């Protein structure tokens, strides 16, 4: 459901920045369903990659072999991400707070971490400069925390006006897609609000999986269940 919903977000998008894992599944599914012309950009340098199967890593050879162009890594960040040329960036998170700030660095104290995570990678600049950001993350109290232990990538900072004050040019996270539903920032408070539940999930489950007092949209909706076509494309992609 997460990758199907992720793919749906890319219907009218020209170029999207892709990481490995669920974001890659979603973006590749979009190329096979709603948007065959979608330009996939991978941080190892491939622009316009057309992978015939899911890549094993962000530098998988077939990404370069099928790309329209291969840029160096400095060029990817300086010429392509920084000027806002990429409309959508997909990010994952180990921790996420109510303003969609993302932590992928450490759990606990930085100098003496409880868990050392991989770190920032390309995420901070993707979060800052892509037109908008879609976060894909499983919802649990451990991941959805009141305050992230470390801000690796800025979401909506401490609320209204934060991104503008920091000089961040992209819109930041516009959707958080989870295994339970979809959260979106409130237009004024910028706090994440539950706007959609996936079929068969109830509000109590979503609240129980959230480490803060989760607000629920007045017009809470149910996401469209995956269509036959989407499921078929997804199965084919995973089997390829």
């Amino acid at each position, binding site marked *: 459901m997460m990758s199907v919903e992720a793919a749906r977000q890319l219907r009218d998008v020209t170029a999207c920045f892709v990481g490995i894992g669920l974001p890659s599944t979603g973006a590749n599914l979009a190329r096979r369903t709603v948007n065959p012309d979608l330009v996939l950009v991978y941080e*190892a340098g491939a622009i316009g990659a057309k992978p015939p199967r899911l890549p094993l890593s*962000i530098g*998988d050879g077939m990404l370069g072999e099928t790309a329209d162009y*291969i840029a160096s890594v400095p060029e990817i960040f300086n010429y392509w991400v920084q000027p806002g040329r990429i409309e959508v960036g997909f990010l994952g998170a180990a921790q996420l707070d109510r303003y969609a700030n993302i932590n992928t660095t450490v759990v606990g104290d930085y100098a003496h*971490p409880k868990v050392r995570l991989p770190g*920032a990678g390309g995420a*901070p600049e993707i979060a800052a400069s892509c037109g908008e950001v879609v976060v894909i993350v499983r919802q649990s109290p451990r991941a959805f925390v009141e305050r992230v232990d470390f801000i690796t990538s800025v979401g909506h900072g401490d609320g209204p006006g934060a991104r503008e004050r920091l*000089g961040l040019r992209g819109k930041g996270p516009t959707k958080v897609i989870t295994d339970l539903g979809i959260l979106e920032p409130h237009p004024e408070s910028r706090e994440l609000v539950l706007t959609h539940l996936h079929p068969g999930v109830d509000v109590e489950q979503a609240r129980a999986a959230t480490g803060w007092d989760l607000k629920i949209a007045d017009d809470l909706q149910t996401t469209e269940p995956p269509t036959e076509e989407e499921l078929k494309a997804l199965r084919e992609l995973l089997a390829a």
Partner: protein
Amino acid sequence: MRTHAEITSLPDAVADLVRDGDVVALEGFTHLIPVAAGQEIIRQRKRDLTLVRMTPDIVYDQLIGAGCARKLIFSWGGNPGVGSLHRFRAAVQAGELEIEEHSHAGMANRYAAAASGLPFAVLRGYNGTSLPDHTDTIKPITCPFTGERLTAVPALDLDVGIIHAQRADRQGNVQLWGQTGVQKETVLGARRSIVTVEEIVDELDEKPYSVVLPRWVVTRVCEVPGGARPSYAQDYYDRDNDAYKAWDATSRDEAEFAKWLEAL
């Protein structure tokens, strides 16, 4: 003046060029990772190195576990597509490894500044993140033309830059293609460089998107077929994904890791 790269064995190149305490970068962004060169550094028991790499992965886990590193400068440390690096993680959690942490954009710009002979690079990044609180090589800077608040990062000060490439000719001109990451900057930004190659050929021919490093900017070229395994070398071999998965178990268990190191 040196007019061409010297072609030597890898053990000779590492013995001559890598010194204890050096700042050393082994680059390759999931493609063309100089694994054989990293393992030669382990065999020669180099110590107190400051290791630099955007994406420390298996070979850095090995170098860290083997005790070669005093410090790591990086932007993403993990086993790509698999999970964590357990030696790296254990060393950081135990406070045994000093770290200097950046984002990819910050690291890429630090390499570009080194290759450009500039003291620092400027980028629009890091604002609002916690990274500047913990990394003193991230500083705010104001644009003298627009007043925009940007970020400065210092050029990497590399003693040795090490990469793997597909091939070189007998004069030491190096050619690599496919996704070439920050390899060009790694060689151009370092005082000394080692390039391991799949093969040495009489003449280089054209390849799409290829990077050519002319012989007079490369210090050593070493023929090491398979030198990037288990990562891949486009048009030579694919990534050995099972080896990446298997590393997880070896790296997780200290005794298993010790056995691996013994056998190296």
